[in-house]
Every structure is written in structure tokens, then in C-alpha cells.
């Protein structure tokens, strides 16, 4: 049966009509394009009158297919599908072809633009006649949410959801929640104590009736899709039975093995082989670091087991994999510090008194290895001069082109702490001082008056090749004072490198497990950088905090709360719609060659061993069509983008370029 296609060419005011002869296109389509029953042009197709016109024509003229030549489908596809639906036509029998963004706004020549529109209309008509009615699918949303990462963003998201009455599972790979914020002493610009504001949140999470907390746990595998994810979590063996442990801490106290703590103490202090990262850890259950524990490395010791009053130490404990079901996932996996050794001219690790920002955080921290005393590596000498070097590994095409955002403020905070705690002179070497958020500029002004020195210039090198007495034994910072246009050298006792904030080393790998992508730099890609900053391209997966880009504490907290709000919305609604643009396999024709199974990154194609055929799990399919293109037997169909539809579109789009002569006849 021949289809009756209605073609509607939009003027979009003068947006399209200014560059395309829309009337001519409409006339041409009506007269020349096969299956076109009606062809019209109209001022604004997306207006209610435009939509009404389509609805009326469907009803009155019995149109079976609709083509609208207007703007991008990303803008108005839904609008015209809705109009069709209102008129009783399946919405997937409507095709919107983009003649504004792709033609009128980019074209230079009206005649050529008009011809291009003709070919796009011809393609759309050819395609739409082969389109098939599709039904939208709805799935239920599991109210439980998985939050990955127990830093401040993850904690905030967890609490928002838990307080709203929804169950949350929070996983954290370290033995305690708290994240980087737990390592800090003070927070800018208010200078309130980090622990004072963080620890109450940590214990709230630890005790919340709606929160299931797994520390020392990592994500193993995610399957399923929005509403119904299945998640496998590896609970790493703590070697301590959480049920029996009271958190008394005597095992830690008695453990004879000291280990350099490169995580929480950033290499500035020690911990024991059985440990909690810090005293206020949540949960308070210690873990045994089996790589360093004497019992595990040498076969004897067992002091911890001997002293434990509840017999909680269990050397036989093994990693355990649990499986949970959740409706949504919030990624709050945070960041890692740039490896400052990668910039050899700053001599980190080669010269003793060059520090990273995280090392200096611990040095300042009242609960840190020096009890908050700012001293040099010898552990006793107070520095008389300190240089703070900005942009170490950020704003640098050799490492990370982006600005880490928070380091300028952190440098000001360091400056303040140095001036408060010591008599040292403190210099900040910056390229641009960035202080854009609330009260930040004021903080900068405050440091100007507190006596911190500011030099505009990226430090060229830190060296110990003294040229004179004054430089002898010092760390010499060589730079250009760009405001004076002069090269200078200045000797210091201590240098602090403001290392860049980088994505976690395994960010890409974890993203792949969850089905979300990363930017070139490795930050998780949000659905829209401005209008949808917490959702991702994968429905049901949200991002919060610095895993999406460098962020300070207030921004991380805000994003954690925002992600939680989005998830809460989904849970409240109860169901979620899934596009019916999915692949399907004709089992009759499938010979079980297993080409397609490897193709799908979402594991949406299962193999039925008994029948020796592959089958698409519709709920998991995202509709990319890669398996369709791969199927050697041609028995996989991609709904709404099947071969017939695309071939027709190609035929239509080349309507004016048919081969000059076909040999037969």
C-alpha cells in the first residue's frame, strides 16, 4: 500500500526562509517526490498553529507519514512526534529533517541551499515511508541508590537521599569515608576547621538507618540499565571481623610494624600495619595492610590477634563479592594529585624541602605528623622563607591544559597559615590569581594586607646551584617577574608546589564499567555542560564532585546535593521511559556465529547455548546499531535505523544524482 506522506517546510520566520526558497521546495516536493500527498510551507511549524495544521491534515487527509523540514531533531523532534500522536498517528512515523542548523544557517548561496533542502526532504520522505510504528517502553525504578566514593560530594549525596527516606548504598575504597577533605586543616576562605565540619557528616552517614556503608570496597561490575542496575561490589578483606570489632584501637596501639602512610599522610607520617587512616575514621574498624603486616610477610607476629579483646582479627578473611540491585548510581569518585616529580625543574623529591600541596596540608594539620608545626624535613627547623609555586601541572599543555581552579585559594590559605604560625616570609608565584567565588576575592585582599608577597610569573626552576653566598644552601627560585619584565632569583628555605588536581588514575576504567565516558583529560562527561551538569549520557548514572572536573568543597557539596535531587525525582516518579530505538535479532536466521556478542559494550547481547542463537536484552540495549552493522548474516535489525530505512534515505538524498546509465535493457 502506498503511503500518504505529508511534507511541511518551515520558514522559521526568516531563519530558514531567508536563505532557502521554502515555497519552491514545498511545491517541488508535492509535484515530484514519490508518495507525497500533501506538501506545505508555513511560517512557524513548531507553533501551536503549525502543529494543529499537521494534526488536521492527518485526520482529514488520512496521512500515514509526516515529514517536517525545520530545525534540529534535538530541538523539536519531540514536538512533532507529539503532534502526530495527538492525531492518532504513531510518533515514530514522523521524520524531522534539519534544514536550519544544517542548511540555512551555514549556507552562503541561496540556490545551492535550496537544492540541498530538496535533497534532505527527498531523503526524509524516502526514509519515512519505511519507518515503522514503535512503542515506548517503561520500566520501574528501584528506590535504592548506589553512591560511589565517600568524599564530601558522595557524603552529601548520600545524606540528601537517606534523609529523604530512600535507601542508599555507599562504597568507598579506603578504610574510612571522608576523602581528601579529611586530610585538610583549614578550609578557605572562612578558615573553619575541616574536621569540625566534616566529621559530623561522616558519623551521620555511618549511623544513618537508610545508609548501607561499605568501606574498603570497590566496584566490580555494573549491568542492567536505568531503574534496575545490578552491581557487583568487591569487599576487600579487612582481616578484621566487623561484627566483633568494637573499634577500641588496642590492636593499632600494640602493632609493632610502622608503615609510611602515602595515602592519608601523603608520605609525611607513619601508620601501623593494622590501621584506621585517622582517629575519627568512620567506620572505626581497622584493616590489616597485608603487604606490610609482619604476619603476612614473614608468617609470625599475630600481636593484634593476641591483644584483641573480642577476637575480631581474622587472618583467613577473603575478599567477598556481593551483588546488589539499585535504580540509580551517583559517581563521586573524586580526584588525585598531580605527580610533581614529572616537572623535574622544580626538583621535587631531589631537593628535600620542596613540598607538594598535600604534604603541606598535613604539615599544617594540628592532627598531622608535626602536630601542625610548620617545620622543614629535618623535623625541627622552622623555615624563614617559603615560596608557593602555582600551576604545577595545570595550565600546562605538557601535562594538563586546564586550570585546577582551587589552587589559588589554597595557596592563599597556606599563606595565611604560614603567617599565623611562623615568622617566615611567604611568596606566591602565580600566573593569574583566580578568586571568582563568593568571598574569595575578599580573602585575597585579606592576604595582601596580612603581608603575603605576590609575584606574577611562573617559576622557571628551583635549583641548588648557588651563585653567591646568599644563595648557599638554599632553594633558589628563578623566575621572571613579569610585571617588571626582569629575570630574578630568590633563595628560600621551603618551596610548596601547588600540584594540579587530576582525574583518578582509574577514572576511565571505572567509567567504562558504568557506561559513561570521559573527556580527553579524564573527567566524566556530563550530559550538558551548562544545563545538565550532574546527569550523564547514560540514564540513571549521575556525577558529583571533582570526578566531573576540578572543584572546591562548596561546589562539590552543591553538586552532590544536585545529583541526589535528580535521583530523588526519578524515585518519586517511579518509572522511567526508554526509547524503543533498540536492536533485535531474528532468531530464525541467526546462526550463532558470536560476532555480535563481542560488539556490545553494555553486554546487551546474550547467547543462548541451547538454541545456539544470540538475543538482545532490550532493556540493556542503547540502540547504537554497531551490532546491526556487524551482523554478517544481516539478521540484526536496528529499530528506526534499519538498513531499508537508511538505504532509502541514501537513495532519496541522491535523488538528483542517479547514475547516468544502467547497462541493462
Amino acid at each position, binding site marked *: 500500500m502506498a503511503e500518504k506522506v505529508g511534507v511541511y517546510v518551515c520558514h522559521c520566520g526568516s531563519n530558514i526562509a531567508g536563505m532557502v526558497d521554502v515555497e519552491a521546495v514545498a511545491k517541488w516536493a508535492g509535484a515530484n517526490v514519490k508518495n507525497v500527498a500533501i506538501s506545505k510551507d508555513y511560517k512557524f511549524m513548531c507553533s501551536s498553529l503549525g502543529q494543529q495544521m499537521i494534526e488536521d491534515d492527518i485526520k482529514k487527509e488520512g496521512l500515514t507519514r509526516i515529514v517536517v523540514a525545520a530545525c534540529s531533531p534535538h530541538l523539536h523532534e519531540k514536538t512533532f512526534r507529539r503532534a502526530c500522536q495527538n492525531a492518532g498517528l504513531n510518533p515514530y512515523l514522523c521524520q524531522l529533517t534539519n534544514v536550519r542548523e544544517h542548511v540555512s544557517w551555514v549556507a552562503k548561496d541561496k540556490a545551492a541551499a535550496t537544492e540541498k533542502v530538496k535533497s534532505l526532504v527527498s531523503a526524509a520522505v524516502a526514509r519515512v515511508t519505511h519507518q515503522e510504528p514503535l512503542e515506548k517502553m517503561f520500566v520501574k525504578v528501584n528506590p535504592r541508590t548506589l553512591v560511589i566514593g565517600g568524599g564530601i560530594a558522595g557524603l552529601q549525596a548520600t545524606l540528601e537521599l537517606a534523609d529523604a527516606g530512600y535507601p542508599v548504598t555507599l562504597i568507598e575504597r579506603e578504610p574510612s569515608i571522608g576523602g581528601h577533605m579529611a586530610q585538610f586543616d583549614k578550609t578557605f576562605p572562612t578558615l573553619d576547621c575541616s574536621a569540625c565540619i566534616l566529621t559530623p557528616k561522616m558519623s551521620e552517614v555511618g549511623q544513618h538507618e537508610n545508609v548501607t556503608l561499605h568501606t574498603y570496597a570497590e566496584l566490580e561490575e555494573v549491568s542492567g540499565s536505568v531503574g534496575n542496575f545490578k552491581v557487583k561490589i568487591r569487599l576487600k578483606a579487612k582481616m578484621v571481623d566487623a561484627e566483633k570489632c568494637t573499634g577500641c584501637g588496642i590492636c593499632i596501639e600494640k602493632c609493632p610494624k610502622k608503615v609510611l602512610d602515602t595515602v592519608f599522610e601523603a608520605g609525611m607520617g607513619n601508620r601501623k600495619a593494622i590501621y584506621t587512616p585517622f582517629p575519627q575514621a568512620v567506620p572505626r574498624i581497622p584493616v590489616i595492610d597485608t603487604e606490610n603486616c609482619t604476619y603476612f610477610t614473614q608468617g609470625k607476629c599475630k600481636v593484634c590477634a593476641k591483644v584483641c579483646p573480642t577476637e575480631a582479627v581474622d587472618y583467613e578473611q577473603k575478599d567477598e563479592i556481593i551483588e546488589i540491585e539499585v535504580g540509580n548510581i551517583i559517581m563521586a569518585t573524586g580526584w588525585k594529585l598531580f605527580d610533581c616529580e614529572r616537572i623535574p625543574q622544580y626538583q621535587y623529591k631531589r631537593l628535600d624541602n620542596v613540598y607538594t600541596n598535600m604534604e603541606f596540608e598535613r604539615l599544617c594539620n594540628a592532627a598531622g605528623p608535626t602536630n601542625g608545626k610548620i617545620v622543614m624535613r629535618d623535623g625541627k627547623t622552622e623555615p624563614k622563607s617559603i615560596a608557593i609555586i602555582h600551576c604545577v601541572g595545570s595550565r600546562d599543555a*605538557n601535562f594538563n591544559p586546564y586550570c585546577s581552579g582551587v589552587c589559588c585559594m589554597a595557596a592563599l590559605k597556606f599563606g595565611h597559615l604560614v603567617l599565623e604560625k611562623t615568622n617566615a616570609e611567604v611568596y606566591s608565584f602565580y600566573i593569574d590569581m583566580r578568586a571568582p567565588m563568593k568571598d574569595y576575592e575578599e580573602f585575597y585582599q585579606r592576604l595582601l594586607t596580612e603581608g603575603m608577597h605576590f609575584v606574577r*610569573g*611562573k617559576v*622557571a626552576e628551583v635549583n641548588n646551584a648557588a651563585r653567591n653566598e646568599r644563595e648557599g644552601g638554599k632553594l633558589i627560585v628563578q623566575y*621572571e617577574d613579569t610585571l617588571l619584565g626582569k*629575570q630574578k632569583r630568590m633563595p628560600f628555605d621551603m618551596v610548596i608546589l601547588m600540584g594540579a588536581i587530576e582525574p583518578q588514575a582509574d577514572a576511565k576504567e571505572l567509567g567504562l564499567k558504568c557506561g559513561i565516558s570521559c573527556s580527553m583529560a579524564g573527567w566524566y562527561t556530563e550530559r550538558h555542560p551548562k544545563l545538565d551538569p550532574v546527569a550523564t549520557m547514560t540514564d540513571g548514572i549521575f556525577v558529583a564532585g571533582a570526578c566531573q572536573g576540578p572543584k572546591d568543597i562548596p561546589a562539590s557539596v552543591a553538586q552532590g546535593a544536585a545529583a541526589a535531587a535528580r535521583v530523588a525525582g526519578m524515585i518519586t516518579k517511579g518509572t522511567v521511559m526508554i526509547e524503543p530505538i533498540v536492536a533485535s535479532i531474528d532468531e530464525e536466521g541467526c546462526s550463532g556465529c558470536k560476532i555480535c556478542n563481542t560488539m556490545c559494550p553494555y553486554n546487551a547481547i546474550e547467547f543462548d547455548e541451547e538454541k545456539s542463537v544470540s538475543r538482545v536484552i532490550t532493556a540493556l540495549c542503547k540502540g547504537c546499531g554497531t551490532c546491526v552493522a556487524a551482523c554478517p548474516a544481516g539478521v540484526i535489525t536496528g529499530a528506526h535505523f534499519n538498513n531499508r530505512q537508511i538505504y532509502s534515505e541514501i537513495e532519496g538524498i541522491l535523488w538528483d544524482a542517479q547514475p547516468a546509465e544502467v547497462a541493462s535493457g
Partner: protein
Amino acid sequence: MAHVTAIKKGTFLEQVVSTTPNGERLLHCMQCGSCGGSCPSGGDMEYTPRAIFAMIQTGEREAVLAANTQWACVSCYFCTTRCPQNIPITDIMYALKRIAIAEGTARNTDAPALAKTFTDLVDKYGRSFELGLATRYYMLNRPLALLRMGPMGAQMFTRGRMSLTPTKIKKIDQLQAIIKKAKELSGKK
């Protein structure tokens, strides 16, 4: 290369960028000063490279070509490897030297004369000839310095480190043909 189109034709900036391989990186300069800080001759420069870049961008052609910056450059490449924007700074210095020599705007330096004397000898023999270079260059440009060089030159002789005659390569014609062609081609540009 896509962004080169943003440079206005006929400007000094365009001249510098188009004569330096990867010169368009210059547009990324953020005036951080790591070049000026790194330079072993930084203290002797009237303008640091960073300042020169700002001047190129604003079209201060005369001042840039008269500056001693490019002549103070010792080709140590510290600025280049440290530049956070991957600007080929040393190569830009060469470009500035070329432009200045071509336009005769170099002042207060004997570097162009040294370069000319050196390459004339290579053009002629195919290899460098130090005694020739020393005598010709110093006689013409730094006669007093030649006197101070005396004792050192004598020591070099006695230790067999200076030759009285130049070495000429066998196929000097071939080299000269190549050089001739190169000059011809670059003349066309």
C-alpha cells in the same frame, strides 16, 4: 593549523608565525614568564621573550627587530622545553634573527657578522675553518678582542687544536648547488 586563520594577513605576527615551524603556538602565550625566567641570558635582555611575544602580538615591529633579545639567545632550549604552551621559543628567536638580518635592523651585536663569516666559509669549503673565521671575523668586527685572544690562540696551536688550512669537501659543487637552490627557493617565498 585550523586556528591560523585567526591571524590577520600582512601583520608582523603573521610574518613571525608563518616563518616558524609550529609558530602558531605563539597565539597561546599566556605571559607566564617561564621563558624569561629560564633564560641563561635573561639578565642581559632588554626585553624577555615573554615581553617580545606581547610586542609581536601588538605589532611593535621596529622595537622587536631592534631588540637584543634574539641576539642574546644561546639556543639552550630551556624556554622551549619548559614553555607550558609548547611555543617553539628558540625557533621564534631564529625567525626574528632571520627577519632582522634580512631587513638589516640588527644593532649593537656582532652576531650577524659572525653568522655571515661562518656560513661564507662553509659555502666555500663545505666545512668550518676556525682560523679563517677568527681572523676574518675578529679583524673586521672585534680587532681589540683579537689581541686578548692571542695567548689562548697560541696555546690552541701548540696543542694541535687549530689548523692553518681549511679542509675542502670533495663534492663542494654539489653542496653549492644545493645551497644555491635553497636560496633561490626561499627568495621566491
